[in-house]
């Protein structure tokens, strides 16, 4: 079937209102009809522009480029699933799974216990040689992803709440988000806007450095989260640091690493900051 599509159907497609069958049928039509594809792309681009103009998060997953462990674990899981599910030549995977266990030939030298013991010793030696990985508390990867997405999409837009006074700004945001933002000597507080956090609505405090560049600090109320020290990362030209404490998750983002460091230092230097945050939360 060719020709001009029903606009209602195209809108239903770009607004994600079609059921799976209708969606796949429409996508098949998109493959066959370039004009329809162009039209759908045009409306999708308009949707993206509207969402960006009013500070809504862009649709689609964020790739952090291995900025966190959890991301790595997720990717490993995906890679494993893909490898297991993928069609292999000559059905090797299936053969391996369904083949009956082969009786191992008894080794003449070491017994099973001795082999396990040797393995454990080798593993311990390897760990000591390489160095223990950081096993302390870490801020959740989703928090870092949400902070990065918010900073990338919203930091350059006009602020929703204009205030240079941290306390007044916190009061303006209502009880759940009322946490006075950090103050760093090299950064000037401009205001704040609401942003989608990893699990709930967050506040994106926006600062300006001496060169007039925006620096963002996302503060998200997170229930039942322990204290985790700042974790740094960088992707797509932005530097990030994420840390948690007192029931909040924090993500600082800026183009310059020094600006992120200034916010992290402000959080670390101000010993009473997290204690006050906890008190405000209660």
């Amino acid at each position: 079937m060719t020709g001009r599509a029903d606009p209602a159907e195209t809108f239903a497609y770009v607004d994600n209102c079609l059921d799976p069958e209708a969606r796949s049928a429409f996508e098949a039509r998109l493959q066959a009809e370039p004009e329809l594809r162009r039209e759908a792309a045009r409306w999708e681009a308009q949707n993206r522009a509207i969402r960006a103009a009013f500070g809504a998060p862009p649709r689609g997953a964020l790739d952090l480029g291995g900025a966190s462990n959890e991301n790595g674990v997720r990717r490993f899981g995906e890679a494993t699933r893909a490898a297991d599910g993928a069609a292999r030549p000559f059905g090797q995977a299936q053969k391996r799974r369904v083949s009956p266990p082969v009786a191992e030939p008894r080794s003449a030298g070491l017994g099973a216990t001795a082999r396990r013991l040797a393995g454990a010793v080798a593993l311990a030696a390897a760990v000591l040689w390489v160095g223990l990985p950081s096993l302390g508390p870490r801020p959740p990867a989703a928090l870092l992803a949400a902070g990065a997405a918010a900073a990338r999409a919203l930091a350059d837009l006009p602020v929703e709440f204009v205030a240079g006074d941290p306390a007044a700004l916190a009061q303006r945001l209502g009880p759940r988000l009322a946490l006075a933002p950090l103050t760093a000597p090299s950064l000037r507080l401009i205001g704040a806007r609401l942003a989608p956090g990893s699990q709930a609505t967050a506040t994106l405090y926006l600062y300006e450095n001496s060169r007039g560049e925006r620096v963002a600090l996302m503060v998200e109320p997170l229930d039942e989260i322990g204290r985790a020290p700042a974790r740094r990362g960088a992707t797509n030209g932005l530097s990030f640091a994420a840390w948690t404490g007192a029931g909040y998750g924090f993500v600082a983002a800026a183009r310059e690493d020094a600006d992120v460091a200034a916010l992290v230092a402000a959080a670390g230097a101000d010993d009473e900051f997290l204690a006050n945050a906890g008190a405000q939360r209660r």
Partner: protein
Amino acid sequence: MSSAREWSDDAGALRRFGLALVRDDRFVFDDAAGCALIDKLFRQASLTLVERRGVDRRAARVRAFGQFIRLYRRHARRLAVDEDGGWIETPPSNRGGGSAAVGVRGLPIELRETLLLVVLAGFTHREAAEALDLPLTVVVDRLARARTRLAAHMAAARDATAAWPQSSHLRIVK
């Protein structure tokens, strides 16, 4: 806890939708007035979310957004001087914020609320029809009109931007 998070997400989405809807350059010109109006309407509409918390998220969402729109319409109607009772076209905006934002602000309210409900708040067409208390066909028709107008506005803004350096550059006088 998850219901608390959902409620918080919905409240954030409602606030964002409200901010986009209310700043129309007709009744609300500056950010302070916009925030004051939003706070008032948001408090009233979010009560619906609180009351129905944990019952049915979708129904509560539709109801809260619908309530917000009705409150805003009532507010705008009080201020409107139009004798016929119809909505007046919003005058062209001279505020910044990008061509999409300006274009959406320039749409008549019935087109703007439908477009923002679907695109910004992520409602399906059916949910939007439910929130606006309109038939589905009317919602689709409004979406089509809003999108066509916005596309024309954005194209004009692009053309104006492209033409600007040639038309208004300063002549160098030696």
